[in-house]
């Protein structure tokens, strides 16, 4: 298993006809993601690869009848699509998210960088009241290596995107490659990687992703890549303290030396009113029992340590390693196919 996306996910893509959208839609399909339709207003009748394009989400869903033959692990298939991937500019993202929510889609990934704050609040609010999950904006998306992705990940870089049993959640893109490479270097692989994004109001928060990882039998431990600003890291510390999350957690928090009241690249990365400092976050996490890495290079070592010391950890770590050879073989074949 994995969380949020896997080979059973049936997704639509909004904005697949743009340059970036087309490029990454093809890669999502290459990795094994099941994309059933694309949506771009005004382009119904066109195709992106083999994927038909529709004017609206509703029209796409109505035209793609449920595949009654398909039975996925969660039971019979009753809806033509259960996820949406949005390659939509930030100023139109709120509209696109609401269109998906109104059509009943419960998992939406938006990569848009620069969603207005008040739009993001409304997106978060609407998602909560529909019990839907919105990932992003300002993220690379989600990937379950070897299975599927909704996002933009160079999954063919096998020293990063190796299937395995470690969950990764992150506020950053490039730093995630850096840290995940260390996870893989230490002999592990990734069950699912979730980019919650670098905005101050992400659609889905670390604590909510952590709850998913808690219930995933194929995730043994979680690596959290956080940074200064906001309270998401503190919320995960609370989950550790309350026992709501019971697996090992290794955290890397960027911005230990960041000056106050300066925005460090991401809109959400700012210490304001004396709150949200990286060191405070690290202290809260340590107090709750997480292992914290000062540098990316320490993450793999701490992970091995955490898994060894947790009771069933040793066994899981071993099985993780032994399953790797099979997984990496599959990874290779995927990569080769892509390069043909």
């Amino acid at each position, binding site marked *: 298993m994995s969380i949020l996306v896997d080979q059973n996910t049936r997704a639509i893509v909004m904005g697949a006809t743009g340059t*970036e959208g087309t490029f990454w839609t093809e890669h999502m399909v290459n990795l094994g993601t099941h994309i059933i339709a694309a949506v771009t207003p005004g382009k119904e009748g066109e195709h992106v690869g083999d994927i038909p394009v529709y004017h609206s989400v509703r029209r796409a869903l109505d035209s793609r009848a449920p595949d009654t033959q398909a039975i996925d692990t969660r039971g019979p298939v009753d809806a033509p699509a259960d996820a949406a991937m949005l390659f939509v500019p*930030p*100023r139109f993202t709120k509209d696109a998210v609401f269109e998906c929510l109104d059509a009943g889609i419960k998992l939406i990934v938006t990569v848009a*960088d*620069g*969603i*207005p*704050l*008040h*739009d*993001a*609040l*409304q*997106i*978060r*609010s*609407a*998602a*909560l009241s529909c019990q839907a999950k919105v990932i992003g904006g300002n993220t*690379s998306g989600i990937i379950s290596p070897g299975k599927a992705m909704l996002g*933009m*990940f*160079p999954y063919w*870089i096998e020293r990063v995107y190796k299937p395995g049993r470690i969950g990764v959640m*992150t506020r*950053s*893109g*490039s*730093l*995630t*490659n*850096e840290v995940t*490479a260390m996870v893989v270097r230490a002999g592990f692989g990734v069950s699912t990687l979730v980019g919650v994004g*670098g905005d*101050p*109001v*992400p659609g889905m*928060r670390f604590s909510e992703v952590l709850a998913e990882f808690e219930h995933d039998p194929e995730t043994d431990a979680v690596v959290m890549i956080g*940074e*200064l600003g*906001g*309270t998401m890291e503190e*919320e995960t510390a609370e989950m550790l303290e309350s026992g709501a999350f019971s697996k090992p957690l290794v955290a890397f928090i*960027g*911005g*230990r*030396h*960041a000056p106050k*009241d300066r*925005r*460090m*690249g*991401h*809109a959400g*990365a700012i210490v304001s*009113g004396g709150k949200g400092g990286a060191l405070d976050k690290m202290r809260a996490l340590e107090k709750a029992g997480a292992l914290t890495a*000062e*540098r*990316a*290079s320490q993450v793999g070592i701490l992970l091995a340590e955490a898994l060894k010391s947790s009771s069933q950890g040793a066994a899981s770590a071993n099985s993780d390693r032994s399953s790797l050879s099979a997984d990496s073989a599959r990874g290779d074949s995927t990569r080769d196919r892509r390069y043909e």
Partner: protein
Amino acid sequence: MKLHEYQAKALFREFDIPTPQGELADTVEAAVNSGEHIGWPVAFKAQVLRGGRGKAGLVKIVQTPEEARTAAQAIFASDWKVRKILVEPAIAHERELYVSFSADSRTGTHLLLASAEGGVEIEDLARTAPEKILKKRIDSIRGIMPYQARSAAYDLGLAPSLAKGFASIIEKLYRLYVQKDCELAEINPLFVTPEGNFIAADAKISIDDNALFRHPEFEQDPADFDSDIAREAAVEGIPYLQFDGDISLMCAGAGLTTAVYDLVADFGGTVANYLEFGGPNYRKSVRAMELCIKNNPKVILIVTFGTIARADIMAEGIVEAIRRLKPNCPIVTCIRGTGEDKAREILLSAGLEPLTDTEEAVKKAVELAHIAYSTATERPTPAAASRQGGQP
């Protein structure tokens, strides 16, 4: 984008929130004249975007022209680079209240904060007497309901005669906050005059940068940037922070750049600037390097691990930038991610050493910055730097 007090108060007036009738002065003479014009005593308030101007002595009540001249001179001469003083009549008041709107990211709501004890920093009040701050969540889709503003006023214990006026100020401030896409809209203090009227004595407004496309009325004053380079970077849309150390960071990805910033400090180096040319800017290597060079850094440190930002395109851009700009300081490169094999070839063919480990790259940059100090008379060229780094 933070607004100056005078700009925020202009917005208040637009939304029918009463403010003192002030005048803006940009010279000592103009400030004294405004005092005469308004009538003594007046308040001189330095227009700066940084917090803490009160403690720095940049807000003064002055009684006479002589006092005003001395105060204005001191304010303009301070190291806060004050360019404007807001001159306002001193307002008699009986109470100071607090009200603000901001975003609550966890619940996706707006947050109304109010207190009957305004005039102090809200963070200080939150620490010392959190029970004195009233919090109400406002549904971001439905908006504020009149009962919410009303009950805020009554919950603070205001008499019915005052509560009505306060509720009205709350609703007006909410309208401004939403219509202008604010991150923060704050009145602190909100004066209550002996006649029972409300006047916003101070105003703090910050506009969401991501929403500026729907607000052409806001334009950043060039003088409000940290440096000319920071302003140029902003025009280019490249995230940039000005520091005064040795190493220019030219990295892709905000999270990675922040992590590199930490490592530079860990290894004993200092940062000249934080520049992030990932995401939509990854084809702007030449422009990015140009901005870095303007800081006369001892080293330019390039670290990337791109996903959308392709390594090969960035490498090509960097080689092109070196060819065109001929930087006279060493350049350390650590470029990985999508297209990294091709990137490696491009860097090698240009005589650069393509490192693959971030820590190694940062250590090397810090080392080269120290070398630059010891051989201050002659700066090493990029090729020489590579040799120092152990390149055969």
